């Protein structure tokens, strides 16, 4: 165990493997986190170079996402993500090449055929459900998926993610209520980064923890340090196990940091104190987890360098692949409006 110092507040990042995780799983977790971060950073570079009109980031959310993803079984569970969930969709099998095709809106983009902005993940093959931009609509879809899974006597858990801002929407309320009435196998995962674009949490709700809403629906609610992938894994695993066992839904809130502006269209200097951002950066979950893994002897500098080199190569390949891909043919515009 390591005490991580983030400006006075002692935050713990565990690197010991809990139920169901081996030490090599911890390293895999770390790899997914670095992959997500590195891919995201490359996307910003492409954006700043004028090649990608839009990027929306996972930076600061990686530990929460990857910790959560490890509690799921991508071959049978269903992920209903939101736009920051790069870390989760990578774990579910979307490849850097596929994601770069999506970023650059090229032909063959499996998430939307170049129709949606980047960050609108979806892939039937990978059990990742197509998403839209209006926030929080997806939580109802996850609920419906869980309803169908339960009805079909499947062993499936539906996992859905939403920002704390999205919890203000009526759909969030309706989904939790419906899921709890029917004790559905669904987990609601709130990635609370304290902002909805520029609106700070205190203007979004009069409570400190979104998870406190769970009681009002008759389901368990947990708030977890979203900078600690193992802590997130632990509560996620408990929720997933409960859902699979017929125990119904859980609301999990992971406290995370948004380390970038809201998106490449945003400039957060008008509304975010640079000091605050600095403090958030000091809690970078990747730095934290890396330090913890090293402290525990689970990861060495050499291994880390190796991982990063492999990931860099993968991302270089993906970038090149996507840059060389053609745009969709204009005639594709009219396809897939109706199925019959």
């Amino acid at each position: 165990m390591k005490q991580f110092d983030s400006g006075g507040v002692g935050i713990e990042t565990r690197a010991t493997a809990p139920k169901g995780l081996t030490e090599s799983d911890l390293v895999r977790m770390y790899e997914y986190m670095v992959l997500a971060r590195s891919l995201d950073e490359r996307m910003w570079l492409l954006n700043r170079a004028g090649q990608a009109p839009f990027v929306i980031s996972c930076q600061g959310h990686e530990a929460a996402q990857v910790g959560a993803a490890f509690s799921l079984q991508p071959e049978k569970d269903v992920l209903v993500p939101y736009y920051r969930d790069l870390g989760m969709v990578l774990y579910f099998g979307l490849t850097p090449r596929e994601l770069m095709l999506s970023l650059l809106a090229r032909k063959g983009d499996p998430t939307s055929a170049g129709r949606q902005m980047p960050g609108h993940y979806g892939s039937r093959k990978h059990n990742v459900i197509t998403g839209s931009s209006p926030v929080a609509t997806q939580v109802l879809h996850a609920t419906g998926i869980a309803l169908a899974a339960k009805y079909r006597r499947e062993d499936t858990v539906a996992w859905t993610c939403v920002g704390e801002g999205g919890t203000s929407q009526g759909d969030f309320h309706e989904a939790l209520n419906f899921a709890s009435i029917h004790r559905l196998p669904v987990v609601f995962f709130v990635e609370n980064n304290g902002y909805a674009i520029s609106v700070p949490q205190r203007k979004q709700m009069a409570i400190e923890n979104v998870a406190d809403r769970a009681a009002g629906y008759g389901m368990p609610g947990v708030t977890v340090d979203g900078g600690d992938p193992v802590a997130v894994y632990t509560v996620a695993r408990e929720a997933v196990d409960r859902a699979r066992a017929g125990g119904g839904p859980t609301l999990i809130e992971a406290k995370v940091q948004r380390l970038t502006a809201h998106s490449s269209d945003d400039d957060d200097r008008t509304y975010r104190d640079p000091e605050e951002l600095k403090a958030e950066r000091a809690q970078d979950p990747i730095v934290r987890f890396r330090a913890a893994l090293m402290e525990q002897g689970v990861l060495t500098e050499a291994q880390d360098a190796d991982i990063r080199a492999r990931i860099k190569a993968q991302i270089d390949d993906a970038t090149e692949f996507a840059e060389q891909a053609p745009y969709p043919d204009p005639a594709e515009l009219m396809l897939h409006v109706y199925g019959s």
Partner: protein
Amino acid sequence: MATKLLIDAIRDTLFEEMRGDDRIIVLGEDVGKRGGVFRVTAGLIDEFGEERVIDTPLAESSIVGVAIGAALHGLLPVAEIQFFDFIHPAMDQIMNEAAKIRYRSGGDFDCPIVIRTPYGGGVHGALYHSQSLESAFTREPGLKVVAPVNPADAAGLLRSAIHDPDPVLFLEHKKAYRLIRDEVPENGHTVPIGKAKVVKEGSDVTIISYGMMLYESLAAANALEEKDGSSVEVIDLRTLRPLDKETILASVAKTGKVLIVHEANKVGGVGAEVAALIAEEAFPYLDGPIMRVAGPEVPAMPFSPPLEQAYLPNAEKIGAALEQLAAF
């Protein structure tokens, strides 16, 4: 062939289809023991149980949103919105989700849901239990919208809708439920989505209508024919999106005169698109203005009987328009 009320044709079709395909579930407010406030789903819960006939909380967005999710996971949900007037909270789920899932995923996902809902007035339902909002939906690519009023059409279109790979809004005129009775073929007959029906052939003028106004139109057509021997063709659109261009344009080519009739407000109603279509694609055949008889420009139908009557188009108002048109 059995003769059935509209409501029974719909209910029987639900029973038959649910027996044949256990992917079909029904969900909505009061659809269980109450059998729906109009009793369209009466008895379903007894045969199919609470898992397939789900009384939902009072929240339309969740009714549609959950149906979408269930469809994404292999079911064929038939959602009920208790009154068309109460569909607005579900607008986002219908327009931004259901209608766009196929397109936004490049065909990777689809959304085979049916949303059934009673619409229309003339039953003292007042401003919020009488609305005809179909044109709020017919503008949306990705959606299909049907409004059968004849029991056989309703049975056939409901069957098509349930097995259609796209989201279908299925509109049931609440005044017609227990008023319209007709023969309904057995053995799972279907009516294709997207096909209008010429319910009465004629050569001098075409009336295009749907819903309860079809019957007012027929009455007006017959009255005119008796009065002066004019020959009036009457078309029941049945499907409001996609429109059956072929049937519409063929009729206009034949008669050259068109009157569109619906209960919904006139401005921006389904009739606007029908008129625009004709004005664009059949102009050379037109012998007179494209007229519309429709609900007046007030927010909805009032409760008080004289006001409700004043709102509703009827055979008399249609007849007057027909005579105006004949004068061209």
